[in-house]
C-alpha cells in the first residue's frame, strides 16, 4: 500500500513538472475551439470572484507560483491569472462640486475642502490634475491674486490650494491654480480608493475689491496603463 501511495505522489510531482515545461508563451493563451477562444488559462487550486465585506471586495486566485510583474530592457510581463484577466479599470469621484468661502475677511483665512478619489488597476497608477480657465474673479475686472509665497495669509490678498493625503502632490505649500494642468494627486501603481483632500484657501486685504467672486476649476484623473 505504502509503495503505491509513494508512487502516486512521485507521479503527481512529475506531472506537475511536465505541465510547467509545457507552458510556453503561446500555449498559455490559446485554448480554443470553433466557438470560443480562451485568452488565458491558469493552473491553480482555488479562488473567489465575489469575496467582500463592508470595507473590501476581493477577487483572488490561489495556488499560482511566480506571479507579478517582470521586465527588462526588452520585455515586460504581467504573470498570473489575475494579471492577465483584468480589464482596464478607472474610477474617479469628486466629493463636492461646490466650494463656497462665504464672506471673506481681512482678519482670517477662509477655507473649504473637497476630496477626490481614484481607483485604477493601471500598472503605473494614475495622476489627477487641476486647472482653471480664469482666476477667481468678479464679473468685472477684479480678481483675487494667486498665492505666490507658499502660504495664504490673513490680511493679504491670496488664493490657492493645498492637498493632504498620501498621494497628494501639493502637501507642502499653498499653491496657485493655473491654466496649465498641475498634478494634485498621483500614485505610481494600481490603487484601490486613493483619497486626496484638496483644501481651497482665500484671504483678502483692505484693498480687495468688493464683489461676488467665482471661477471653475477642472479636475482630470488619468490612468497610466
Amino acid at each position: 500500500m505504502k509503495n503505491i501511495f509513494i508512487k502516486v505522489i512521485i507521479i503527481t510531482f512529475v506531472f506537475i513538472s511536465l505541465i510547467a515545461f509545457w507552458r510556453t508563451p503561446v500555449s498559455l493563451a490559446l485554448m480554443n475551439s470553433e466557438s470560443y477562444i480562451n485568452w488565458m488559462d491558469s493552473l491553480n487550486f482555488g479562488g473567489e470572484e465575489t469575496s467582500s465585506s463592508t470595507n473590501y471586495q476581493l477577487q483572488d486566485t490561489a495556488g499560482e507560483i511566480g506571479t507579478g510583474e517582470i521586465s527588462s530592457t526588452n520585455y515586460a510581463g504581467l504573470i498570473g491569472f489575475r494579471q492577465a484577466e483584468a480589464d482596464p479599470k478607472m474610477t474617479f469621484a469628486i466629493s463636492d462640486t461646490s466650494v463656497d468661502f462665504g464672506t471673506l475677511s481681512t482678519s482670517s483665512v477662509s477655507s473649504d475642502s473637497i476630496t477626490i478619489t481614484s481607483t485604477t488597476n493601471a500598472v503605473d497608477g494614475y495622476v489627477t490634475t487641476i486647472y482653471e480657465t480664469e482666476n477667481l474673479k468678479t464679473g468685472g475686472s477684479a480678481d483675487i491674486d494667486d498665492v505666490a509665497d507658499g502660504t495664504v495669509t490673513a490680511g493679504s490678498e491670496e488664493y490657492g490650494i493645498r492637498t493632504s493625503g498620501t498621494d497628494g502632490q501639493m502637501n507642502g505649500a499653498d499653491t496657485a491654480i493655473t491654466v496649465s494642468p498641475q498634478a494634485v494627486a498621483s500614485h505610481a501603481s494600481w490603487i484601490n480608493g486613493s483619497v486626496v483632500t484638496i483644501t481651497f484657501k482665500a484671504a483678502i486685504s483692505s484693498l480687495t475689491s468688493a464683489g461676488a467672486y467665482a471661477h471653475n476649476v477642472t479636475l482630470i484623473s488619468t490612468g497610466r496603463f
Partner: protein
Amino acid sequence: MKRKSLFKKIVGGTLVSLILMLAFPSVPAHATHTSIKDTMSRLKTGVGSNHEIQFTLDASTNIIEDETIIITFAASWTDGLNSIDCEDIDIMDDATQEDIAEVAVEACAATATEWGAIVAGDVLTLTAPSGASTYIDASSVVTIKIGTNATEEHTGDTQIVNPAAGNDLAITIGGTGDSGTDPDGQLAVSIIAEDQVTVTATVLPSFTFTISSSTCALGDLTLGTVQTCNVTLTTTTNAVSGYTTTVVGTAAGAEMVHSNLTDDIDNATGVEVNANSEEFGIGTSDSGVDIVQESDCAGADGGAAADAESIDTNGDNVAASVASAAGPVAADATIACFAASAAATTVAGQYTSTVTFISTGTF
C-alpha cells in the same frame, strides 16, 4: 533508511518542479504597448473633450508603410465620434509631428507621404503612408492628439463628446497584426456627472470718509497777501472703481458772506486767488479733478497768490470734484485748500462760508 530516501526524492521532485515553473514563467501571448494613457481635457458627460492618447510601442513593433494604429472607443461613445476628421488629429513620434492628410486634399486617406485618419463607428484608424519606410520605430513614444489640441497643418475644430457617465470605459489600441480581440494596449477612463468645482466667495463693500476738521480759519485778510487754510479729506474703500469726493456751496453763486448778510467776498473768477483782489476760492492737492490743483497750500499762506477757484465753478451750484481714485484705496488723503484775499474796498467784518464735502464710492 528507505523512508528517508523517499522523503528526499519527494522534496527533490518538488524543488525541481518549482524551479522549472519559475524558470519558465508565463508571459503575455500578445505584444503589449506600455505606458498607455489618455489625458482628456474634460471628464464631464455630454461635453466635448480633447484626447491625448500616448503609449510606448513594444520593442518588437515597428510601424511601416500601410500599417495601422487602430483606436477603438467603447460603444458608449457616439458612432462617428462626433464627425472628427483628420484635421482634428495629430500623430507624434517621440514628439516629432507626423504628416497627416487633409480633408480637402486627400479626404483624410493615406498617401505615399501622409498618414490617413478615418473614423468608422467608434473606431479611428490611422494608416501609415504607403511609401516604403519605417514610420515609427519600435519602443517609440506615440502621441495621438484628438480635438482642438491638434495643430498639424490645421488647428482642430471638433472634439469628441463624452459619453454617458460611467467607470471603466475602455479605449483599446490595436493595429496591423492584431486580431481585434487582442489589442496591443488598453486603457480605461472614468466619465463623471461633473468634473468641475465651482468656487465662490463674497467680499463685502467697505467705505470710510473723514474730514480732519469742520472749521477752517483764514485769519485776518490783509492787503498784499493771500490767506489760506486747509482740511484733509481721507477716504478708504474697496470699491472696484474707486471714489470721488465733491465740494458744493450752500447755493448757486454763494460767496463768503459778511456777518451783516449783505456784503461778501467775491468768488474767484479764474484759477488763482491774488493779493489785493477780493477773491475767495478752493484748491486741492489732488489732480485730475474739477477743482484746480494747489500742491502746496501751506506754503501759499501769506504769499501773493494761491491756485484756487470758485467753489461753484459754473455758477450753478453743481458739486465739483476735489478728490478721486480709480480703484480701491486705503486712507487716500487729499488736502482741500481754501484761499481768500481782500481788496482795499472790502468791507471790514467777519466773513463765513459753508461748504459740503461728499465722498462717493463706485462699486
